[in-house]
Structure formats: C-alpha cells, structure tokens
C-alpha cells in the first residue's frame, strides 16, 4: 500500500557508502587492503571505523533527540569537558574505573542540564544547548587550567588506541553502544514514545505519555555519549585539549543523523542508520586523505555528497521518480 520510493529499492545510505568506497578504491587502489599486524588489523577500512567512532557515538546519542524535534549543539563542548575531567583524573593517579565514571557523570550532568532547559523550561533546543556549547569550552579550560593536560595512564590510553579481537577499541565501543541503544529503544516502549513525541507532542501529552521525562532522559543519554566520545578522543591523543577536542563535531553528528534518514522535523528514527551516516562521513574524510588531494577539498566534497544523499531521500524526488516509474509500468502493460 505504500508509495513506491527509492528507499524501498535500496537504502540510499548503503548505495552512497558503496559509491564512496568504490571512489576511494579508484583514487587509492590499496584502499581495501587489510593486514594483520601485532595482533590487530590495519588498513584504510579499519581506519574509517576507528576514526568514525567518536562521531558515531555522538550520533547514537543525538538520533533520538532529533527524533523528538530537538537538537544538542553542546556535544562537542561536552566532549572537551569530559576529556578534561578524564585527563586530570588520570594525572591524579585515579584508576580507570574512577576516571571513566567521573567523565560519564560530568556528561550526564551536562545532559540533564540541557534536558531540563528543554523539557521543563520549554526553551527551544537550539538555544538551550547553545548555552552549554559556548560555556562548555570555558568549563573545560578551567579544568585544564588553560593548558593541554597530557597523561600516560596505559589503561586510559587503551580506551582510545587499544584493540579487541583485532578491531580498534573506539569502533568496538561504538558498535556495542549502538546495539545496546538500539535494543533499549526497540525492545522497550521508549522508541515508540520517542516517535510519538516527535510526531505530535500535544497528542503525546493528551495520551498520558511522560513526554518531559522521556525528553530529559534522551538529553541525559546524549550527554553520556558525548562524554564517552570525549574520553576516546582524549585517550587517542593522550591529552585533553580544551580548545580543540570535539570542535565542530556536533555538526558532523547532526549530519550523520540526517544522512541516516532521521528527519529534523522529528518522528521516525533509526540509530544504526545514524551510525552508518557517521561511517559515510568518515569514509569521505579518509578517502580524501588517502587520495592525496589537499584536505581543503574535504569540505566541498563532503557538501556535495551530502546534497546528493539528501536529494535521494527527498520525498519530492521519490514522488517524481515513482510517477515516472509508475507511468512506465502502466505503459508496459
């Protein structure tokens, strides 16, 4: 009964990823080479999932927020705060568990702050999270006292650079988080509630949904995801850089969610598709890097590919295509 659309033939995101990977392979024939060395996998493909992990983790937290017609602009800044907390904790000689818990708690607090502004004070998400986007970096600088705090705690560094079963640790964390978040959304009623709230908040209130609690929870989860991404980013460079950690990554995360097919107007969402969106973005970045093109091209190519994907997702384009397609089949009969 559904209208025929492109996404019924093949997910445009998968087509886009395949297209980009093939393009990468054409400019860099060694792109698909994966080697086993020192107990772990190496290669451009592995690099894509490793480098893409922080944005993927941000996108996991951002997806349901966007599905409720919200947005969290502060995730990049929260990454910096959590990274600063983790670094100072490691420098102080705290064990990994304390470091991680501290960073995640700070992320949770940031998320609760955002969520309270949105859910209870009714501030527009864009403005509400802008507050922390700006203030967060200040907080991070206060924690690091203006310098880059470096650490050498091997346990913390492992989070950013280690490997499990040959796969890079950040990718493993992102994968586990994606599966867990997806299951929580779909095996409990939360996913349905999120989609209901995003589709019609007023009707959700009339139905007796605890919309505010759900929204608060989503921002809190988003904060935790950002903190986790922040710890990984800090562990990767063995230091917390309050000015540059996670800089502009909120935009990549939003982009990943949108590429994954979740509408900024709220409603239906898919966390795995958002992660796929993050991988697409990273595949582009890596492709341009390995191709030897000047990195300045990155932004332009990224923009073009994004436009392409959005056009493929557009309802209007789908309508035109299906009309053409429909006419051809009727003529054929």
């Amino acid at each position, binding site marked *: 009964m559904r209208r025929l659309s492109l996404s019924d033939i093949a997910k445009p995101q998968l087509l886009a990823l395949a297209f980009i990977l093939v393009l990468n392979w054409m400019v860099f024939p060694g792109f698909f080479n994966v080697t086993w060395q020192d107990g772990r996998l190496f290669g451009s493909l592995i690099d894509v999932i490793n480098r893409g992990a922080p944005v993927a983790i941000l996108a996991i937290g951002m997806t349901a927020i966007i599905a409720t017609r919200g947005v969290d602009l502060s995730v990049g800044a929260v990454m910096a705060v959590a990274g600063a907390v983790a670094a100072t904790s490691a420098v102080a000689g705290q064990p990994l568990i304390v470091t991680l818990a501290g960073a995640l708690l700070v992320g949770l607090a940031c998320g609760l702050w955002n969520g309270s502004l949105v859910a209870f004070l009714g501030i527009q998400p864009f403005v509400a999270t802008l507050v922390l986007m700006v203030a967060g970096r200040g907080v991070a600088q206060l924690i690091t006292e203006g310098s880059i705090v470096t650490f050498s705690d091997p346990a913390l560094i492992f989070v950013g650079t280690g490997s499990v079963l040959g796969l890079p640790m950040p990718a493993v964390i992102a994968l586990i988080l994606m599966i867990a978040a997806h299951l929580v959304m779909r095996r409990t009623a939360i996913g349905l509630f999120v989609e209901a709230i995003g589709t019609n908040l007023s009707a959700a209130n009339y*139905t007796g949904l605890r919309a505010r609690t759900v929204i608060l929870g989503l921002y809190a989860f988003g904060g935790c995801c950002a903190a986790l991404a922040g710890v990984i980013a800090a562990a990767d460079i063995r230091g917390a850089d309050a000015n540059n950690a996670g800089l502009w990554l909120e935009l990549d995360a939003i982009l990943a969610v949108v590429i994954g097919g979740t509408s900024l107007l709220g409603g239906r969402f898919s966390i795995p598709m958002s992660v796929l969106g993050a991988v697409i973005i990273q595949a582009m970045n890596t492709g341009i890097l390995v191709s030897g093109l000047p990195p300045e091209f990155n932004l332009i190519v990224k923009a073009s590919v994004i436009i392409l994907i959005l056009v493929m997702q557009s309802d209007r384009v789908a309508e035109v295509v299906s009309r053409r397609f429909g006419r051809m089949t009727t003529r054929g009969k």
Partner: protein
Amino acid sequence: MTTDNEVVLEARGIIKTFGNHAALKGVDISFRRGEVHALLGENGAGKSTLIKIVTGAYIPDGGTIHLEGQPVSFATPQQAQSLGIGTVYQEVNLLPNMTVSDNLFIGRQPTSAGIVNRKATDEMAREVLSRYGLDIDVRAELSTYSVAVQQIVAIARAVELSGKVLILDEPTASLDRHEVDKLFQIIRTLKARGLAIVFITHFLDQVFELSDRVTVLRNGSLIGSERIDALNRTSLVRMMLGKDLVQHHHTPVEGQAEGGETLMTVRQLGLTGKVQPIDLEIRKGEVVGVAGLLGSGRTEMARLMFGIDIADSGGLHIDGRERVVRSAREAVDLGFGFCPEDRKADGIFGDLSVRENIVIAMQARLGWFKALNRDEQMEIAGNFIEALDIRTASADLPVKLLSGGNQQKVILARWLATDPRFLILDEPTRGIDVGAHAEIVRMISRLREDGLALVVISSELDEIVSYSSRVVVMRDRTLVAELEGADITPSKIVQSIAGQAGEPVAEVTA
C-alpha cells in the same frame, strides 16, 4: 437563478491514485458563475482529493481541467490562485501573529520607494473588509479575533487574490449559528457578484439553505450532480450513502439514568478566567451530554477534568478521595480517557501507523519496560479495527491517510484499549460523514450500556438528545442548567443556552 449560468471551471475524467488506492475514478464536475455548488460525500469519498486537484495541490493522474473554456494544468496552488481559484480551508491557514491587514495584503502591499506603505495597506484592508460587513481594527494581530472573523479574513483574501472560483472547505465546522448566518450572508453577496462558489460541508441543512447545485461523490466516483430543487433530504442522503438512513427519529432517553452508581463527584472545579467552579455528579452507565455555544467553557471543563489544565479551585471526589488531576498522566492512571476536539492537533500521531496509534495509550499506561511486542500490538489493533469497523487497508498504514471518521475511531480505540471507566468525548462527530456519524453515536450508546461513564460535548443538539441520560448546559464559562428525563429536548436545551441573557438563538432546525 438562471438555469444556464456560464461554466467557469470544468474538470473531466479526473483520476487520482495513491499507491493501490484509487481516490478518484474518472470524476466530472463543473462549477458555474454565480452559483453555490455543494460538494458532498462521506469521508474518504474523494472530496478533498478533488478539491486539491482543481486547486493545484495535487497533480491528477488523468483527466483534463478547463478554466473558462481554456485547458489548464496547475503545477502549484499559487498558479491556480493567480488564475482565479481561491481556497479557504477548514483550518484557517493565515498568519495568526501578523496583523489583519498584513494577512490580507502580504506580498502585495502598496510600496513607496520599496518601503511598505502601512497607512495605505491598512486603508485598503479596512475598505476590503467593510465590503464583508466587518469593521475591526486591521492593525491588531489576527489571532486576537475569533475563528469566524479569521475565516472572513481568509475568504476576503482568497476573493481578492483570485476572484473567479472560491472554494470553502467545511467553513462552518467551528462556527456557531450566528457566525454561520453571517458567513452565509457573505457567501450570498459573493454569489451575486458572479463568483462560482464551491461549498464542502457535512450539514445537510446548510446544503439546502445555501446551495444551488449539489454534487455527490462516493468511493471516488461521481454519483450525481443535480440542481438542489430537484432533490429532497432523503434522496440526497440516499445518494451519499447508497442506502436509506433512518433520519432524526427522536427517541427521548427516559428512565435509563436510574441505577447508575456514582463514579465521581466534581466539586467546585474551576480555573480563574476559564471555567467558573462547577459541581457535577458522574455516574456509571450514564452519558452526560454537555451543550453550549462555542466558547461557553465546555472544552475548558473537560480539560480540567483530564488534567490538561490544572484547576485552581475544587477537584474531583473519586475512589473515596478528594483530588485534583494535575496531568493527563494522572487522569489515565485513574482510568480516564479523552478524545479531544481537534483530532489533528491533539489526537492523532499522523506519521505513525494505525496500530501504533491504537496501542499508544495502553503502552503509556503499562510504562516503558513492559513493551508490547509487534504481535501483541497487531492483535490489539486488529481487534479494535474489527470491532469499531475502522476502514484501513492495513494496520501499518500511517493514520494520517485515513478519513476523519476513521481517525476518530482510532482515537476511540486507543482509549478503549486502556479499559477506561470514564471517557470524555469532545465533539466526537465533528467533521465526520453521515455514515461514520451514526456509527459513533451507536458506539456511545453501547459504551454506556457496558457501564462506562461518559461525558460527551457536542454542538449537535439532536445528537446530544439521542444519547444523553442527562444534559448539562454551559454558558459564559459556567454550568447553567442540568436537564433530565423528559426535559432533554432540543428546544429546552436551546432555551437554557439562550437563558436570561436573552440572546436570540435561532431555532435549531431538526
């Protein structure tokens, strides 16, 4: 009323298909200058689709449109508008936060050196509206006026922009009797000016009062297009339903109020500025009908009972406790359900499936972790789709694709799934076709027999009389009368609504 007015807009063999569903199967229709043409049909008959096609909102899959003899095809509503076809939708789509004159002239204000000349705009707006008998401050925000005024502004704008064909999609749905009369006056003036007017409504009285010609659609096909003097009510209803419908038989509900045990007592429930403190007893197995004009506080009272607004005086006495419902959540936990007046804004989750729309309240009551899996959802939804005869191709169809009557049934099913003991229905039959209307009225009676307590708000007195065990009448944000037994008649209700205020309420035609 000449018999051969010139045809302005003519559509022939219009076909439109959505997926596998044929919305229009080759429909012919023509609109004539100086004629009011009523377009009738049950929900889902194809009225809206047809209108959207002649106004350029949809592109037809087949057929031709001729405007004043010339073949045309509209790619956008703007194009249709510029060629002379103006539309006023049921939900007024103007800009509520801009002034009346902005709304009338936006995009074409008189300018001097590129700067909008406000004075001239306001002057023009005043002049235009005076032709509609409206003398209001055109510099005030549109939202400060009633829906009726907004509707007139919308009509004025459409006529100013277009001027050949004016399409009114259920213009009277949210107006009271006075406002309807005023609107009809305006329509008659426009008709005399030579406009072709298309009028979509569900009220048969209004069809006979206003129209010159009637076209009936059913299931996407043209059933007939007749001059009104060639028709009577029965033949018209037969055309619409394809069957004879028992019409307006007043069976006063007597004696059934007995035996109902009290579910709850509303005590001095009120909210400053919205509802004066109200006392009311709600009994099991009873329908309390709420009558009153728009703005009389009917909906506001319901919102207080359900915790959408929080009362600042009084409360409910239920289960041996005194309490104030502070959120819909609490109301749902008490076993209440509420079908709101504005289905689209407050009722349905348009993009979600029929299945999800039905199970959502039940799931909200179960909480986050006791999730119904897909099979359970399917079973619940399937049961209600069958029991309430919800017409949908599948339970997975987005609910926004269903007709208004079926959407209303979905919302009803949503609450019935929570096994409620008290249901509030606010205008449950508004904007619903005759067939679904009768079904909903029957359903209300059945629920009462099952022992539910119901409060039903409605503007249709015949309807209220037919199912209510008691009727309360509201006026000026307060409860002014409670009618029982033999007193429940349309004329008594009208008397109570009119009250000492002595407002000349037009006798309701039955």
